[in-house]
């Protein structure tokens, strides 16, 4: 039961990171620190495949158990 929700918690963590980096990105853009803003944008884009991989791995785990 508990390990079923491990991936959900991981995805929620990814989403929290998304929120943090989005706010950082917008603020750094406003403060004209464009390099930091660009780095945050790249991290934000990179978090999506991570989230997708977590979801895909979860599917595999369920199919082998059942």
């Amino acid at each position, binding site marked *: 039961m508990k390990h*079923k*929700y491990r*991936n*959900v918690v991981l*995805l*929620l963590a*990814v*989403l929290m990171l*998304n*929120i943090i*980096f*989005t706010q950082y*990105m*917008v603020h750094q*853009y*406003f*403060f*004209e620190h*464009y*390099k930091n*803003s*660009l780095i*945050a*944008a*790249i991290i*934000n*884009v*990179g*978090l*999506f495949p*991570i*989230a*997708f991989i*977590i*979801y895909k791995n*979860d*599917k595999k785990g*369920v199919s082998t158990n059942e």
Partner: protein
Amino acid sequence: MSDKNNKIPFNEDNYTHNINRNNERKLDRRGFMKTLVGAAGVFAISSLPWGTLAAKELTGLSDKKYPKQKITDVKSIAVGDAVDFAFPGEHDSAILIRLSENKYVAYQNACTHLRCPVFWNKNEEEMICPCHHGKFNVQTGEPIAGPPRRPLPEIQVKIENGAIYAVRVKRYEA
């Protein structure tokens, strides 16, 4: 069932009788995870324009060109002194500071907080905005104290034949 289909239209006021939702709207664990992945995708896509704009600023594509403009003569400004001028428009007030014999810096002196004029404090060697005591680094224009969080737009200067010219604004916001 069969006699219902033969009567057209059969007597029924429920026009949605053939829709069977079959719990398709139920949000289970997997559905919730799918939503989270979708949200991550929305975040990723919404980051793209910011990243593009930041990259554009870094490459300097948005720099504008202005005709060069004489500020003052080298003789009339002593080391450590400042002179006010306007560049590129007549209402874009700016300040030129002579830091050493050969080092000049110039900034548009509207404070990046609420656009009060920024002054050169010779004794403390920093630029100060009197409205809310915002301070700027004179070497780079970066804010170092107070409410402003953005650097002052820097103006590049050039010395020709004993006169100082403003050449271009590194970043100009109208």
